């Protein structure tokens, strides 16, 4: 029963995408591990790792789209939540190194040893437990988003002002994490991870498993976001985006709704960051760079904001392009990237997916009108 009502709420499109993601999660590792390298369908480990990374980016873009596309909050600081989730996971992975660090210190990570730290700072306690780290992966970004959003939305900071202070937030965090005194490894960040949950991070099997985990997590996030945006809550988010004061005068506590969406989004971003770190093997303050957060905005815009598939598609497309261009035309890829953003904003304001669905609804409308002309029925509204 529940699944049936889920199905009707989500619509077939979302179900297809989720199913596809789950399918990828199951099949890609098989193609990678089970088939010999010579087999034409074999997926090389390199691509598994690469696409695992893209899927993390896709999740981050999805998270951003929930607040930007649906609620009109253009966050230029979503990279911060991603990075915080990453740091939480990184701290767990650091603690897992144990005595295998270069100085063989039982508790202190290497960077603390050679900077003469005496003992583990209090905020590193507990990160030797996976469950605790996993909790922090959502709790820390969630908490930051809650505190930040609580103040910002209550004070009705909107539009450009909000965007700029989210940028200030991630910039401040960037500077803070650069400080070696903070105890997060400074500029070098956390690195040299050995294993996770007892299995080596360097084996193909682990990489495939992480890929699957990421695909599943993306699928679940997609499901969660679909449920949210298709509920009355989701309609309200759009309502707030389009006419905030109307919603307020209807009696909705706009700041609470924004806050809820913002926190959920930050948590998804945190999970994406946590999955990203073991796959790339490093987390450092560079992830907080304002430019990174702007890039996320751009993936979302290219793919199409206000659709859930758009940001995923945009993240895959832009990052795929980046991987290709940085190898094939290293000197010119910034021209390509920059040009893409200009062209998309000018000619595809709704993004690629947005344009596709616009074409589709236009086609449907024509079909519908023809049908209604024939049957005399009322035209159906566009989705």
């Amino acid at each position: 029963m529940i699944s049936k009502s889920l199905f009707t709420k989500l619509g077939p499109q979302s179900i297809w995408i989720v199913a596809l993601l789950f399918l990828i999660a199951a099949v890609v590792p098989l193609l990678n591990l089970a088939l010999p390298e010579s087999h034409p369908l074999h997926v090389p480990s390199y691509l598994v790792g690469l696409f695992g990374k893209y899927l993390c980016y896709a999740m981050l873009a999805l998270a951003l789209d929930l607040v930007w596309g649906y609620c009109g909050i253009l966050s230029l600081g979503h990279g911060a939540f991603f990075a915080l989730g990453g740091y939480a996971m990184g701290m767990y992975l650091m603690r897992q190194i144990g005595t295998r660090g270069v100085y063989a210190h039982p508790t202190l990570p290497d960077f603390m040893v050679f900077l003469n730290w005496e003992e583990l700072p209090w905020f590193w306690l507990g990160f030797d437990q996976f469950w605790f780290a996993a909790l922090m992966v959502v709790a820390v970004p969630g908490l930051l988003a809650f505190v930040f959003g609580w103040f910002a939305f209550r004070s009705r900071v909107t539009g450009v002002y909000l965007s700029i202070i989210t940028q200030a937030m991630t910039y401040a965090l960037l500077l803070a994490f650069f400080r070696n005194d903070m105890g997060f490894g400074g500029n070098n960040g956390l690195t040299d991870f050995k294993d996770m949950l007892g299995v080596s991070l360097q084996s193909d099997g682990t990489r495939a498993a992480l890929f699957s985990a990421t695909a599943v997590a993306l699928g679940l996030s997609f499901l969660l976001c679909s449920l949210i945006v298709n509920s009355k809550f989701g309609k309200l988010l759009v309502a707030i985006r389009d006419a905030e004061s109307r919603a307020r005068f209807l009696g909705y506590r706009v700041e609470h709704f924004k806050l809820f969406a913002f926190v959920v989004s930050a948590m998804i971003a945190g999970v994406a960051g946590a999955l990203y770190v073991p796959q790339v093997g490093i987390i450092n303050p560079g992830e907080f760079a304002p430019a990174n957060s702007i890039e996320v905005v751009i993936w979302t815009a290219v793919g199409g904001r206000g659709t859930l598939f758009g940001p995923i598609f945009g993240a895959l497309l832009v990052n795929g392009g980046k991987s290709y261009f940085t190898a094939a035309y290293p000197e010119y890829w910034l021209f390509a990237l920059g040009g893409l953003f200009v062209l998309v904003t000018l000619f595809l304001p709704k993004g690629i997916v947005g344009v596709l669905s616009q074409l589709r609804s236009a086609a449907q409308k024509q079909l519908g009108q023809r049908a209604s002309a024939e049957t005399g029925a009322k035209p159906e509204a566009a989705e």
Partner: protein
Amino acid sequence: MKRFIRHVALLLAFALCAVPAAQADEELTHLISALANGKLKEMPAKISALEKAGNSKIVPLFEALSAGTLFYRKADKAVFITRSSADGITLMAPLTLQEQGVTTKKSLKKIKVNNKLRRQLKTAIANLTLLSPDVSLRLSAAKELFKSSDPAVLPLLEEALHQESDASVRQAMQESYAAMTLRTQHASQQHRLDAIETLKAMGNQQALSVLTGFVASASEPEERDAATSVIASINKRLARWSVAQNVWYGLSLGSVLLLAAIGLAITFGVMGVINMAHGEMVMIGAYTTFMVQEVIRNSFPGLFDYSLAFALPLAFLASGAVGFAMERGIIRFLYGRPLETLLATWGVSLMLQQAVRTVFGPTNKEVGNPDWMSGAFELGAMTLTANRIWILAFAFVVFAVLLVVLRRTQFGLEVRAVTQNRRMAASMGIRTPWIDALTFALGSGIAGMAGVALSQISNVSPNLGQLYIIDSFMVVVFGGVGNLWGTFVGAMTLGVANKFLEPYAGAVLAKILTLVFIILFIQKKPRGLFALKGRAVDL
């Protein structure tokens, strides 16, 4: 060139009263040619010998050695003072300064010098010029001797003091005499107490350093107490001045922020375009300065001091033209969609950066400071550096001019009309697209002019713009979008706040705290410092 003329003047002056001492000259020549061989470690002894044997004739040689323009010819190890000129290296005889022809760099080898030698040379030059007829030479010699701790100079200084008629030189000599007295402990107690008084009157960092050194080694309790109390009073004075110094640092940082942000206050503040390529407009301005200086260096070296004056209008035009093209090509399609201008301009910013990297290469470019932009002067116990003063003044002028343009000119009126009510303005016959493009070009052009100023204190590289873009946005938002005075006050407030935090929190933490402060401030005043009020704002 100036230095050269000074040398010649000096030489003539001495030639008049010179005793024909061929023997002494011969010895000198011999000592000079000894400079051409041997190691750096043997140099101090050779220079002492030269100093003893020589008189002020040797000064040009010392100065050349110190400046690294003393060479010897590889072929015959003859030593020359050199001057590079258009057709190669001009050689000059080290004592007579007569030109000895032109040669190539390859045939010469430089006589090496290091800091220790340079210090020795400076003192030597000071000793040799302390009795010079030229007042300015005597003054610099007297000042230089302040650092000396060679007791042998004391009698010379006494003699000089005896003869000195110029008040300022006399004072400098007295101060140096006092410093040397305390350092060498070679005088009577009364002398030393007098010296402490003299230094008290100086009351600056230099005096403090002499006194601290003295206290550490003083044997008489009376003297030590006197010195200690003077140290305390100087410290108190310096502490008071340091507040003023911090305000100055803050204002000068504020003026840099203002310069960086002021163009953005127009493109973003007035027009509502989230111009992420703003930093690149600044960069274009800085590169224009570089190109202007290149041309001047290669073709009109005499004009170097005016290079910034040429660069300013050109930078305004260059950045303004790029801004104009951007507005016509991209931004005009995006009015009413401010957040999307962010995306497009970010793309433009990436392309401009890469374009500059392709054309000029990724490394820093050298932009020189004209003479009037270098150096510093003292105001009480404060040091005001020339470049900061000029930049502060420049920022204020740009701000004032912009204010006048927007408030008092027809163009300004039309700009304000268009930004307030585009349709109404259009129906009154204002060519709104034209005004849009010009306004954007104006904002960009001003950013370009800021680039000229910033090239004087910062790197000129493709990354230049990225350094300033975030700070610029913070300033404009903090001050209140759409309000030029807000940008002005915002920049100055942030500058001063930052500089007062820095001594306590360190540079990194100060910056973080400033950002947190901005975030909290926006909560309190969601529309910045100088917000527009009323019901028209957000419905």
